[in-house]
């Protein structure tokens, strides 16, 4: 109803893009296209396209399964096969799905991988995940790139060269071998040009939250917006067109002074503006979101929408330095930034988008995100004197989402923001 009425053009475009990709994947055997499994952080989308491969993102499959309420069963299946309770639930969901026949979100079977391309090693689990996949798919070629961490808050030329060397000596030769296609740098450059363009658009889109009311929710809707750029369309004209259309729609909302669209229609009153750190919960995504919009809370920026690339500080794929650009891209993904960098980035978001609060969603089974989260929260609280909140859930394991606990904490948190705002203003008045 309300939701139908709110179907924007961009949503339709995105849906078509995704379903086309899955259709192509389903037909990969017939068309002879090679299938490359890879992860969102540090994904080499343009290089994959240069070799005419089709990408599969196991963590996207996991979150899609969770949104379709299938992850619980998949996780149980994986646990039956001796994956411990403490293992990343994305992994277990993916393994479970594979064990249950690898049926993807569109109901069609996802083809087996020809290549397992690990281009981001900042998450240790990723390596173990692909080791598991390698055992299941012994014929797949494994390509592993080591991504240096930004230990000293910078990407040095040596770090870049170290990665470029891996691309030249390992990645490209192996991809040529698997696909039988010769590396075409001109083609890669064309993709990179389009990437930079899409990156410009998405940066503008996430920057619209500086408006009041914010026209978008940069977390709950943001995870949909990052879809195309993250799941293999970066470097395509389709992605550029999608983001142009989306930007146009958002600017129309800005012109009309409208707030974000929620599953129950437009958010009428913006009461709280938040910056959120950490991935969302996918098993109860709608319920989780509802707690926020029911209380008039809109997310004006989130770290999670930066997992597939951080463009805030002006970095773009540079077609003139193709391999260097890919290297920098891998090293520049959110979880590869050190803790002080993340603090700076989020502090900037809090200031630029005039957030009233900073909220952490701590994910039980995610080391990449959880490490340092409390320290970051403390530092941001001290530095900006912004009210901070902390909730706990999980990515795709429904057993770890406690609606009442989360609602209770969020209610308290929003009341705390409210109290500080109303009484804080009173106090300032009295003191003045």
């Amino acid at each position, binding site marked *: 109803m309300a939701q139908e009425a709110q179907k924007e053009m961009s949503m339709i475009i995105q849906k078509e893009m995704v379903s086309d990709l899955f259709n192509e994947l389903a037909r990969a055997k017939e068309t002879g296209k090679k299938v490359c499994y890879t992860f969102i952080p540090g994904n080499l989308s343009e290089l994959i396209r240069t070799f005419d491969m089709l990408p599969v993102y196991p963590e996207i499959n996991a979150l899609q399964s969770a949104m379709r309420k299938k992850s619980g069963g998949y996780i149980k299946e994986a646990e039956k096969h001796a994956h411990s309770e403490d293992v990343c639930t994305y992994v277990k969901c993916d393994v479970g799905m594979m064990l249950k026949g690898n049926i993807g979100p569109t109901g069609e079977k996802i083809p087996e991988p020809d290549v397992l391309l690990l281009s981001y090693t900042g998450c240790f689990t990723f390596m173990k995940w692909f080791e598991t996949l390698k055992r299941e798919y012994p014929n797949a070629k494994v390509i592993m790139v080591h991504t240096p961490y930004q230990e000293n808050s910078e990407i040095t030329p040596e770090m870049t060269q170290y990665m470029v060397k891996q691309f030249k000596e390992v990645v490209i030769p192996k991809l040529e071998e698997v696909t039988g296609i010769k590396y075409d740098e001109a083609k890669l450059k064309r993709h990179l040009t389009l990437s930079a363009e899409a990156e410009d658009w998405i940066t503008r889109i996430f920057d619209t939250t500086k408006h009041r009311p914010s026209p978008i929710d940069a977390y709950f809707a943001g995870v949909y917006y990052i879809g195309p750029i993250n799941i293999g369309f970066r470097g395509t004209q389709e992605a550029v067109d999608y983001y142009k259309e989306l930007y146009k729609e958002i600017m129309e909302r800005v012109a009309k002074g409208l707030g974000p669209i929620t599953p129950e229609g437009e958010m009428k009153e913006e009461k709280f503006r938040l910056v959120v750190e950490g991935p969302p919960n996918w098993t109860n995504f709608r319920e989780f979101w509802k707690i926020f919009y029911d209380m008039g809370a809109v997310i004006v920026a989130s770290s999670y929408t930066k997992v597939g690339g951080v463009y805030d500080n002006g970095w773009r794929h540079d077609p003139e330095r193709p391999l260097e650009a890919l290297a920098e891209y891998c090293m520049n993904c959110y979880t590869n930034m050190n803790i002080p960098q993340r603090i700076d980035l989020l502090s900037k978001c809090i200031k630029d988008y005039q957030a009233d609060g900073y909220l952490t969603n701590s994910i039980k089974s995610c080391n990449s995100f959880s490490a340092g989260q*409390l320290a970051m929260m*403390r530092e941001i*609280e001290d530095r900006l004197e912004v*009210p*901070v*909140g*902390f909730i*706990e859930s999980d990515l795709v394991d429904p057993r*770890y989402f*406690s609606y009442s*606990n989360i609602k*209770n*904490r969020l*209610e*308290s*948190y929003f*009341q*705390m923001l*409210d*109290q*500080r705002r*109303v*009484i*804080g203003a*009173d*106090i300032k008045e*009295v*003191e003045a």
Partner: protein
Amino acid sequence: MNKYYLGIDLGSTTSKAVIINDRDEIIGRGITNTRANYKVAADIAREEAIYDARFTLLTNRLKAEIDAKPEFRRYMEDIRSVFQYRQFKRRMDSLERMLKKTVSEFQYDNRDLIIAKLDEILSTIMPQIRHEFVNEDLGSKNQFFRDIVSERYNVMVAESHKEFFEPLMLAFDKSITPVENEMVKFNFKELVDESMQVLEEKYRGLAERPLEENKEDWYYAELNAVKDNYKNVELTLREHIDSIASDDIHISNMVGTGYGRALLPFPEDCIKSEILCHAFGAHAVFPNTRTVLDIGGQDTKAIQVDSHGLVTSFHMNDRCAAGCGRYLGYIADEFSISLNELGPEAMQADKETTICSTCTVFAGAEVRELLNNGEKRPNILAGLHKAIVQRAMSLIARSGGVRNEFTFTGGVARNQAVLKYVSQMVKDAYGDVTMNIHTDSIFMGALGGAMFARRNIAAHLPEPTKQTETA
């Protein structure tokens, strides 16, 4: 007309009500055990707070006399206790009827014998309880109806033959809940009159009784004063009692908080998060508070507040109950002792046995194993108390540590052993910070709620004077 404000804190274990006047002073407190029917729990706590408020008003009126004359002080203390007894008695009468009704519906052949046994038990425990209320300090122990009765009932039943044991326990279990859930409204004046009669008998009896040697002098000084002058006190009291009883304790606004808050029949803007209420209450009592630790029945909260009592951040336990009051309740059940006995026994320990389990239920298994291995019970209890505090400390660390001053609230703050470990561990980790624990610690949430109610939910806050004090 005087304005009063009500805060109700519906916790998972106990329901608390606090009434304040327009100077944020507590004039009434009420507490009861939370039961399946939240509304009844809230109503009982509120009614109790209103009776308590009337006594406070009475005490205030008689302030000059109470300060000057020991018999007034003594009488006022005694009458509160007897008043509680009269309330208890009403409920007890209802329980007696319910017990007999329950037994009469049993299928047992020996129903009449069971009823006779029941009569025997009740006629033994009732005078006991009366004595403890009227002549001892049962009234000040904050024990709930269910606990007072079941403690004594169980002792009696335990001595019964098996053929009575089962039906008697069954009858109690079936009868206690409906009686607890009965909303009994008392007439304040009637109850006071009854209480005065009871006291008259008591004091008259005293005049005829020889002195006992084992009491201290001041006790007798006070008692002798009452003995000789209680008639005067009665007369003065009667002058005031009518107006106090008919005084309209007008609740101008109220705020509900705690786990059951959503179930309270209050408008939405009169429902507040317990985090804000606890912090606000604790800060009102100790204005320099910067860190609040609240250990309640179902959760533990570490809260940081600013100089105005506004919450800046908080952390709560998730997914596990091992760090909160329910853990103690479970352990008390494991040992078949009452919650109130846990702390004192733990204080007898000569060392703390290490308890590894981070899970309430597993800790039970661990405890049994330790007992089998010959560990002393006080030492195990000490270890359990320490374990709870260790978990609370980790929560405090996550919320940003202890800042000066540190205030400990919640029902668990009444437990001496928990207090001991909190003091120790806070000192070890954060040095010599000021630690506040108030006898009203369990009422902090309700107090904060009442204070919010007075401010009409955050419309206007602290008077400038209060702020300069706290600054």
